[in-house]
């Protein structure tokens, strides 16, 4: 599903931000991605959602070797990965419906199916009544739920979230976690990067721990149930 072999990443002209990453995520796994600010969590997620390619090592995402993949093969792979950002990244000039429908339209799905799927997804995240609103008319929590609807509407194999609760209050953060757990239960591999210790302790699961660009704690074997507390790795 996801496999890192000695992966290193540096941005052009800068020292390496991620070093010697080795881990594997099985299909249906759930992982917290933990670590202090600047540890490289966002860079690790960027590698996984194909916003950057590793500068060394071997990275396999959804069974595809990212380094050897041609650039024009990447979009198809990206459509199988859902991403939720802290700042939502909704398109301000489109309605909630059109934002959530975007991945399906990019994939060229028929409009009838799009209407059904997006309608269902908006009901699932509780935004059915706001389908025609612009993102600016929504609260932070509603915008985040719209972003999640967009991320999961294509039923991605891999769902990544970067500080998804950063702009949400406790109740909304809790609701978000329920959505992630539901997706995971349906078979999606989920990785959530967060600083929110309270959230992690309420939803114990295995974690990838990063510090200064290195993985200091990892779980390599497939995990049947994410709800197991992760053994501390020193």
């Amino acid at each position: 599903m996801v496999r890192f072999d000695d992966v290193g990443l540096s941005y052009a002209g800068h020292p390496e931000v991620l070093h010697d990453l080795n881990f594997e995520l099985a299909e249906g796994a759930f992982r917290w991605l933990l670590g202090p600010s600047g540890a490289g969590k966002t860079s690790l997620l960027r590698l996984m959602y194909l916003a950057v390619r590793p500068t060394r090592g071997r990275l396999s995402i959804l069974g595809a070797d990212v380094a050897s993949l041609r650039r024009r093969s990447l979009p198809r792979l990206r459509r199988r990965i859902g991403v939720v950002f802290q700042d939502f990244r909704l398109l301000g000039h489109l309605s909630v419906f059109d934002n959530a429908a975007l991945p399906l339209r990019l994939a060229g799905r028929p409009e009838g199916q799009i209407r059904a799927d997006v309608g269902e997804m908006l009901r699932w995240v509780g935004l059915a009544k706001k389908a025609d609103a612009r993102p600016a008319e929504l609260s932070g929590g509603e915008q985040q739920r719209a972003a999640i609807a967009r991320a999961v509407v294509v039923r991605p194999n891999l769902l990544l979230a970067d500080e998804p609760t950063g702009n949400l209050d406790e109740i909304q953060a809790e609701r978000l976690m329920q959505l992630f757990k539901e997706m995971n239960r349906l078979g999606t591999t989920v990785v959530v990067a967060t600083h929110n210790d309270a959230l992690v302790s309420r939803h114990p699961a295995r974690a990838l721990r990063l510090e200064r660009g290195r993985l200091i704690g990892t779980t390599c074997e497939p995990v049947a149930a994410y709800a197991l507390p992760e053994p501390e790795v020193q």
Partner: protein
Amino acid sequence: MMSRHNLLRPAGFDELGLRRALADRMLPFLVAAMAFLAALALAGWIGAASLARLWQAGAGTSLTVQVPHPADAAHGGETRLEHVVGMLRENPGVASARALSANELNALLEPWLGAGADRLGLPLPGVIAVRLTEPGFPLGALAERVREAVPGTRLEDQGIWITRLATLAQSLQLCAAAALLVVAGVAAAVIAVATRGGLAARREAIEIVHGLGASDSYIAGQFAARATLLAAAGGIAGGVLALPVLLGLANLAAPFGTTSEQAGAFAMLPVGLWLLLPGLPMVAAAIGFTTAQATVRRWLRQLP
């Protein structure tokens, strides 16, 4: 708003917000200006070409021969004039040869000498109007024989002037072609700059859509569709605006050609121009499409 979702995907669904990023004022205006110039250059091209044809067809096949002392006797009881006419008519390549009458000569000279030039008693040469079967027929040998038989005869070969005028017309055509190329280049540059402006303005939206799995061809297609539409609109506007100017110029140039003012506006412009003018918006649209495609695809290469 909800009713919109009941229809099929709206044809002009604007994911990237290009309707604002590639605004519908400046770009069509600039393309219209380019199309206007292109229409003038096209008219110049066609005008030069038809003038060259006209000169070659008219002057290229005509020739005047001057025979001094035309009434003096030559061989066989003929006058010198009659002898030259006979020689010319027997020559292959000459369609007709006709000596101008005294009245015709007087009419030719009237602007310079006034009416009644014959009364001045000037020793006027005989003038023979010759038509050749084809322009540029070689006359060297004929001129030689005529001069030998009737000394003093002069063939006014207009070939050299035709060659010079043809060269002039050709260089005019080259200028028009160069103008067309420059105009097309500037139009492409204008569209490239506008497209880059649109890319900068919608960078965030493009990155989002790219991250969601939009291919380069999808994003480039969105820009190209918009640029094509705006360029075509500009091309139509420029072509339409150029029409009255072209008609005015054709009116001024009418004495040089064969068309007449009374024949109506349609006949005033050459048919070729009427056929090419509708091509302007199409060429503008093609330039808009290819330029936007190339610009966006090159820009997208900076994204992974």
